[in-house]
């Protein structure tokens, strides 16, 4: 797990992502001027994770296992490592990486916003919004690693996850499962930050947690049964 995380954090993509995200948020905050409020600016910044930065996360997570299939996986799996150890390390390293990047970038967003624009937030609302988006990213990450486990081909895993993630955004509202749609969360974020908590958000939390648990469980069973 530590070796994996070290590779992820040291990659040039991580550095580029961080710089690009900070620059974008700086432009957004400074560009909002006197019309901007905490709820609007922070929700826009957090929405970027769901709509834009999710593309990077999809690439990083959907290659977790599939990119190593073949000799490298053989080299690791032939050592004193159980299948569970290996998969747990993949899930953990990716989740920690995504949350660390999210934490760093969102800290900059919130820090800049609180200091510059008009405050209209409730502290528990702000924290709730940050945690909800974190949960959405955990769902994305677990799905990514799961898809990477199911597919030996990284490209297929990435494309499949892209399709599923964006389908969740646009398809779920059509079948009355809008509480599971990340796009729905984006529309609710400004209200949540201002302190408006709706009961459907509990359904969102339960639903997303179930998806994460299901992805983790299914991929663990599949990985245990499959030939490396």
């Amino acid at each position, binding site marked *: 797990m530590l070796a994996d995380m070290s590779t992820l954090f040291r990659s040039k993509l991580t550095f580029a992502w961080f710089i690009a995200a900070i620059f974008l948020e700086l432009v957004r905050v400074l560009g909002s001027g006197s019309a901007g409020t905490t709820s609007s600016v922070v929700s826009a910044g957090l929405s970027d994770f769901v709509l834009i930065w999710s593309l990077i996360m999809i690439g990083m997570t959907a290659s977790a296992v599939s990119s190593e299939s073949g000799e490298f996986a*053989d080299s690791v*799996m032939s050592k*004193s490592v159980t299948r569970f150890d290996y998969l747990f390390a993949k899930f953990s390293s990716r989740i920690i990486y995504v949350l660390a990047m999210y934490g760093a970038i969102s800290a900059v967003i919130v820090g800049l916003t609180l200091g510059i624009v008009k405050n209209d937030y409730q502290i528990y609302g702000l924290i709730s919004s940050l945690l909800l988006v974190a949960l959405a990213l955990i769902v994305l990450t677990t799905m990514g690693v799961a898809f990477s486990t199911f597919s030996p081909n990284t490209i297929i895993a990435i494309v499949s996850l892209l399709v599923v993630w964006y389908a969740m955004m646009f398809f779920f509202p059509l079948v009355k499962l809008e509480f599971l749609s990340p796009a729905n969360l984006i529309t609710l974020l400004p209200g949540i930050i201002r302190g408006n908590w709706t009961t459907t958000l509990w359904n969102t939390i339960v639903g997303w947690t179930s998806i994460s648990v299901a992805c983790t469980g299914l991929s663990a069973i599949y990985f245990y049964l499959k030939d490396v």
Partner: protein
Amino acid sequence: MTSIVIETENLTKIFGSKLIAVNNLSLKVEEGEILGFLGQNGAGKTTTIRLLLGLIKPTAGDVSVFGERMNSNSSNLRKRIGYLPTNPRFPPKMTPIQYLDFVGKLFYQSKDERMGKLSKLIRAVGLLPSASREIKGFSTGMITRLGLAAALMNDPDLLILDEPTSGLDPAGRKSTLELIQELGKEKTVFISSHILSEIDRICTHISVVDEGKSIFLGSMKDMKKRTQSNTLRLELEGNLNLVFENLRNKSGVTTIVKRGEIGLDMSYDSSLSMLEAVRIAIDATAKCGSELISISSSTSSVEDAFLDILKEEESRGFLRAV
């Protein structure tokens, strides 16, 4: 009494109901043996190795290593195994020191233990000058040596080497084989190869596999005895034809065949011992004013024995199902 390190019983692997890669393979490897797992490309050698390591599940049959059944979660068994895959791949941005340190962590070794071992191994495989270079710039030979070092990091009781000389130049091949031979004095070695001369050189026992099935299992001596016959192979400098004519008329010499510009194969009947046959050959050569370059018993090669085994297996026809 030596213990059995590897045992398979009717081991079978069928991929996707289409390909029978391993077909009722039964073999035993005892402690201290250097077993050569010999077969042509596509015979099922690598698939067998992956079954031995628990990386893939058998369709039928059993695999036991160190007396315990091997499966995908047998990390306790793999702790005692060192494995070198064909064309090993390593993280390109790591250095040998970093990679071996990582391997040591996979075996839950303490920092002191890891550092001590990796220093010794890097030196032993001749990678000391490149110890802090990124692996991505390494040659095939260096990759293989690093792979061997990684396979030895846990000081295994069993070494499984899949085509360890693949892609190496002659010098690299020689040093790798010498290293394996040295390791074989302390460990049980299972080496898969399609290169007969390598198996001949270093192995004590051999298993021949063809189309996923073991068609011979025994010692090297037993294998070579299969094609032993009364023939001497001579290489001469001088008048080959004169020596040929001289030997043709000797009592006890059954056939004499020319081989190229300098070679003669002399077969003799059982009335002569090998010593007498050698004496006749030497006398004839000297009498004709020629010089003997080399003399050998021509049928002690693994290649002849291997081809003989394959031919015999093919000729069994339907009896192969028994």
